[in-house]
């Protein structure tokens, strides 16, 4: 499975083995780690909600797009769901290729797309006891507060 959702800790070694190939000279991996703060707030734990039927379909599409656009041999992505503690791996992307340029480009493409296209949401539980749904990257980058803008 090129893209999958897991409710258990991600097996990094297994993900790497899935892209191992004696024709490949380059391996690039990305891991998203649960860090102890976000936008100035101290985070205690994190909760991922994943709508699997669409996430799995779109995730597989993203991997296929990366394989088609870049000269890479293998690519895999695993995303966690449920409650995660600090330091846990939320998402992993592994890519192997003959040469490193394509491996870097494909790995970055996959994680960029995964973060903006898949129906996955995270709720941060702060040390203050408050919890909050985290807005998408673009909204955060634009400096918008939650819910103060409209789309359509």
């Amino acid at each position, binding site marked *: 499975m090129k893209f999958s959702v897991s409710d258990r800790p991600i097996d990094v070694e297994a993900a790497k083995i899935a892209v191992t190939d004696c024709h490949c000279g380059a391996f690039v991996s990305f891991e*998203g780690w649960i860090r102890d703060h976000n936008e100035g707030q101290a985070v205690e734990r994190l909760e*991922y*909600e994943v*709508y699997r*039927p*669409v996430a799995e*379909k*779109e995730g597989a599409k993203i991997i296929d797009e990366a394989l088609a656009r870049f000269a890479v041999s293998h690519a895999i992505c695993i*995303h966690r769901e449920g409650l995660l503690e600090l330091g846990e791996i*939320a*998402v992993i992307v592994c890519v192997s290729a003959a040469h490193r340029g394509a491996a870097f480009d494909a790995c970055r493409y996959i*994680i960029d797309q*995964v*973060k*903006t*296209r*898949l*129906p*996955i*949401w*995270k*709720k941060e539980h702060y040390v203050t006891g408050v919890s909050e*749904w*985290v*807005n*998408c*990257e*673009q*909204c955060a980058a*634009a400096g*918008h507060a*939650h*819910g103060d*803008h*409209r*789309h*359509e």
Partner: protein
Amino acid sequence: MKTRVRYFALFREQAGCDTERVDWSGGTAAELFRLMASKHPLLRSQAAALVAINDEMSSWEASVNEDDEVLFFPPVAGG
């Protein structure tokens, strides 16, 4: 026309439910969202919100057909 609507994450909390059936005159996914927002005062449209119809990602301008299931995704934040 009957449509099943599903809410996720923040939208589920704002709508106060995760699924509902709606009987309406039909239209686009965006029009359906506005209709539901008028029913649920807390439900507010968000930049970068996404919509899927029958488990396929869709555009907000897509027409909703009879018996479609429409999924409202608030801004996603994977990874």
